């Protein structure tokens, strides 16, 4: 049952990501920057898609998850490059907004930041989808 286990990973990570991001914005009242919003747009549908996939035991849910997981991974990667200064902030699309995407709002244990958490979540979900894809092709048994 690699299929449903992988889909479960997507579900678990997306639910934790959703609750975590809502905690940051609604409980801690940290305003989300523009790039964070784009990552949310990619993350939240994954909660719904993977839930329906798991409940109906439909591993085709993975197909619908791909665009969101990869899209989110791209935005998260861009955000981290910006955040850690690999891309100059002057090129960032959101410095004029209320919150700069390169402003550090949280730094746990000296390295855990919100964009890093997002990046880790999307990498995990894409990896789970790759594994699910391989298992459906019979590569993983």
């Amino acid at each position, binding site marked *: 049952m690699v299929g449903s286990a992988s889909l479960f990973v997507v579900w678990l990570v997306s639910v934790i990501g959703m609750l975590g991001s809502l905690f940051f914005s609604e*409980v801690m009242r940290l*305003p989300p920057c523009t790039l964070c919003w784009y990552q949310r747009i990619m993350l939240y549908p994954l909660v719904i898609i993977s839930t329906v996939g798991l409940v109906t035991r439909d591993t085709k849910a993975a197909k619908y998850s791909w665009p969101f997981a990869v899209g989110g991974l791209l935005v998260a990667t861009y955000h981290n490059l910006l955040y850690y200064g690999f891309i100059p902030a002057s090129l960032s699309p959101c410095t004029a907004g209320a919150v700069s995407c390169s402003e550090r709002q949280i730094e746990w244990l000296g390295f855990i930041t919100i964009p890093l958490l997002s990046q880790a979540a999307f990498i995990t979900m894409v990896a789970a989808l790759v594994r699910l894809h391989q298992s459906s092709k019979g590569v993983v048994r």
Partner: protein
Amino acid sequence: MNKSRLIVVAAVLVAIFAIAATWYRRQESAAIDGAEALVRPYSATLGPADAPVTIVEFLDPECESCAAMHPITKRVMKEFDGKVRLVIRYATFHGNSAYAVGLLEGARAHEKYWPLLDVFFEKQPEWASHAAPRPELLAGYVEALGVNSQAVFDGAKSAETQRRIRQDQIDGNSLGVRQTPTFFVNGRRLTSLGYEPLRAAVQNALGSR
């Protein structure tokens, strides 16, 4: 994946979220010890200095919710007449906030602080529309007060006024003020806005003495 197991995991995650949120809010509303950052000697105050309850309000003249809360705060102060002191701090989040705050500080020297604050909030729809702000109207409100408006304008630009705005910003940051208005009633952050929460918080502060 078993459906019931899925529901259990989801329930656990949501429960963790709810517990963490409750805990965080409780921490946030716990009384703040750093009273220095809460009230500065220069801050504008209304009501008796030795009042048992102090409401500290971080406000922004350009913020709609602040305008909406303003009459409510006054109403609560009237109800607990003589028992409440109001301290105004600034959180200048909008484009013309600092300018408006400067004029308020300028008017303070001429005993016109509170009337001008009332006018700024009343006329807010005219001068502080987000689509088309008209900060040029502010000077007119000052002139209508019937004081030496040039002196108010000079006071607005003074180094002392700018220093106060900066200090309020620093204190607001250190107290976690990210939205306006943010109220502290005897050092406890008010977690929801409105007449009833504010009245209850004042009542509570009086009762716990």
